[in-house]
């Protein structure tokens, strides 16, 4: 087989890279083992949520405080801005408008009633007017837990007014009591309630995806809305699990809140992320429209070299390994979590496609920290690259002129601990698209 550019991986970085390269006129083949972090995450765009555990207010300014070798330093602020601006345009055109400001982080309500720092959120997660910042009411700025429930106290995305946390009866992946309890601890006026589901096909039990598919149906929404309105009676806003439709963008959300007569806010809910499924579907539609070939369920397993170039990428096929000759190869296979890197029992690490060098650890106990909810060194493991995203050897020399790495595969950042997964994905996709758009086809 032949391709112009092969992109390996269908997570946030691979999807954005494939789309942008196709938009730049390259002929793209997307190879993926399976679904990536769209399906596992919080359904937001984290750019830089925390440094050293502390929440970051202005992510683009805070980049200066990141250690040397961080992907943001390699691609620069212009690529970050371009990546986020492109994503906002792309999602808006796909009916998945996002709210937020690259220069100012916001918080996202979670199913646990925590307020996770992030940057852009889909409109159904944004809250009515919660993005407007107000100055803290006291001169010194009171601590988060003591802010008045009627304002967001200068924290964009923080719930305001009377909040009803409403679950759909029988949905096992959300607890309105737990969410409301923790919101109250943060000084938010929150109560727990439950909305009955109309008669449907899943009387016994159901998943979030099944419920979201039902909510895609306008008739189901009309039957659902009265019970939802009763559950949220007296509240300014209802926080609900992120299940308001999966196949029709944000339209089911907009329709249901209009029918129920109360603004609805989707809380970040456990995997599978339904906002992530919406985004994945939008990418899939865009890639199809751009004529991108797509092989899903066939992991890349190796490369063939020709001097200082990658000549072909090898991937599993239905009955045998297939070889695809390519001009350019972009690896977006993720770190250890995404299966781009294997963590070995002896403490070493193996990059899975091209056998690229990855700095390992003295032994496997060094992979992780003492506390599960703390940081884990393994989360930041990755491939070192130069400013053109080419993997380099110990002396800094590129290992292949036509091989680039993007997203979670890159060394020098911990997507979970620092809250940078989608930002790094979009910024490095922007950079790789700029680099390869300018590269003449050999």
């Amino acid at each position: 087989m032949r391709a112009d550019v092969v992109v390996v991986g269908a997570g946030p970085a691979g999807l954005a890279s494939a789309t942008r390269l196709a938009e730049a006129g390259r002929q793209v083949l997307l190879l993926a083992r399976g679904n990536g972090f769209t399906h596992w995450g919080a359904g937001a765009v984290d750019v830089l949520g925390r440094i050293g555990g502390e929440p970051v207010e202005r992510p683009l300014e805070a980049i200066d405080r990141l250690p040397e070798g961080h992907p943001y330093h390699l691609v620069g602020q212009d690529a970050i801005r371009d990546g986020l601006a492109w994503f906002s345009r792309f999602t808006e055109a796909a009916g998945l408008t996002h709210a937020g400001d690259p220069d100012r982080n916001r918080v996202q309500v979670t199913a646990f009633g925590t307020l996770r720092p992030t940057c852009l959120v889909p409109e159904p997660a944004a809250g009515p007017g919660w993005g407007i910042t107000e100055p803290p009411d006291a001169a010194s700025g009171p601590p988060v837990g003591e802010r008045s429930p009627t304002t967001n106290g200068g924290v964009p995305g923080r719930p305001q007014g009377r909040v009803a946390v409403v679950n759909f009866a029988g949905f096992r992946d959300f607890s309105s009591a737990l969410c409301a309890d923790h919101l109250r601890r943060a000084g938010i006026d929150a109560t727990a309630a439950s909305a009955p589901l109309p008669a449907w096909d899943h009387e016994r039990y159901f998943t979030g995806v099944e419920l979201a598919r039902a909510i895609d149906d306008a008739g189901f929404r009309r039957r659902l809305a009265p019970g939802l309105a009763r559950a949220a009676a007296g509240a300014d806003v209802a926080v609900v699990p992120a299940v308001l439709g999966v196949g029709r963008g944000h339209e089911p959300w907009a329709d249901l809140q209009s029918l129920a007569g109360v603004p609805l806010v989707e809380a970040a809910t456990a995997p599978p992320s339904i906002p992530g499924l919406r985004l994945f579907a939008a990418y899939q539609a865009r890639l199809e429209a751009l004529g991108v070939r797509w092989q899903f369920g066939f992991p890349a397993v190796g490369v063939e070299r020709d001097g200082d170039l990658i000549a072909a990428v090898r991937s599993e096929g239905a009955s045998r390994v297939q070889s695809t000759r390519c001009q350019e190869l972009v690896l977006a296979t993720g770190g250890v979590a995404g299966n781009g890197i294997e963590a070995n029992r002896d403490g070493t690490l193996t990059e899975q496609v091209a056998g690229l060098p990855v700095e390992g650890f003295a032994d496997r106990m060094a992979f992780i920290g003492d506390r599960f909810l703390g940081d884990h060194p393994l989360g930041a493991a990755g491939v070192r690259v130069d400013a053109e995203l080419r993997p380099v050897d110990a002396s800094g020399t590129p290992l292949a002129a036509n091989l680039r790495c993007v997203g979670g595969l890159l060394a020098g950042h911990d997507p979970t601990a620092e809250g940078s997964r989608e930002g790094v994905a979009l910024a490095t996709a922007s950079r790789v698209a700029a680099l390869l758009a300018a590269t003449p086809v050999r």
Partner: protein
Amino acid sequence: MCAQMVPALASGRVLRAFAGSRPLYQPEAPASGDGEGGGDTREVSRNFAVVDHPRLDGLDNMYSIVGGKLTTCRQMAEAVVDRLAERMGVTEPCRTATEVLPGADHGPHRLAEPLARVERDYAYGELICECELVTRGQVREEVAAGLTELEDLRRKLRLGYGPCQAAFCAWRAAGMLAEARSAGNGSGDGGHFQGGAPVDQDPVVGLERFLEERWRGQRSTIWGDQARQALLNHAIYRGTFDLRGEGVPDEAAAPTEGG
């Protein structure tokens, strides 16, 4: 070392590591070997023994029961009590083999009963923990019976014991505990947890403690698939739910105990 005996273990998915000490009994120290105390402990019998002090030591009224393990505890009790009965002239036949222990005739370890429950009430069978097949009905019953901590639910129902190591079940069960507590508050009962913890204890803190306890047994088995699992769990609890473990004191998270 295990992989030298069973090579497939080297590439298998090891969920946790834990250790315990096991008392073994051997009247005479082994003559040679590299075990502790100069002998090769691999050769020591794993069986239990009733030590006959009247015969061995001239102590007329003392017996010891040593070795063995929980699995054989009833057989051990039978052996030593039989010896005492004989000595005391008790002729009542031993009932160990026929006497059913309290709770042995019902519970989640019996397949027929949960299946009958699911037939009566389909929602009873909704899975809260997919790895260990713990259902919503089982959790609801145990909470109604007085369990208030995830740790108790784990020991009773095996919640969180499986390959995913509590990626999905722990927050579902924490939600059910929160619902039960909020219902308890409404009706005015259940004002305190068992053990005296106040009712306004943050349910998130209980979950964080549970996760840190689970982590202790995972730390030495993080590689391969289980490394991916651990980072996924981290991305769910720390990334999506933004839990930070701030309510868990260091001593509760410190890796000082096994299991």
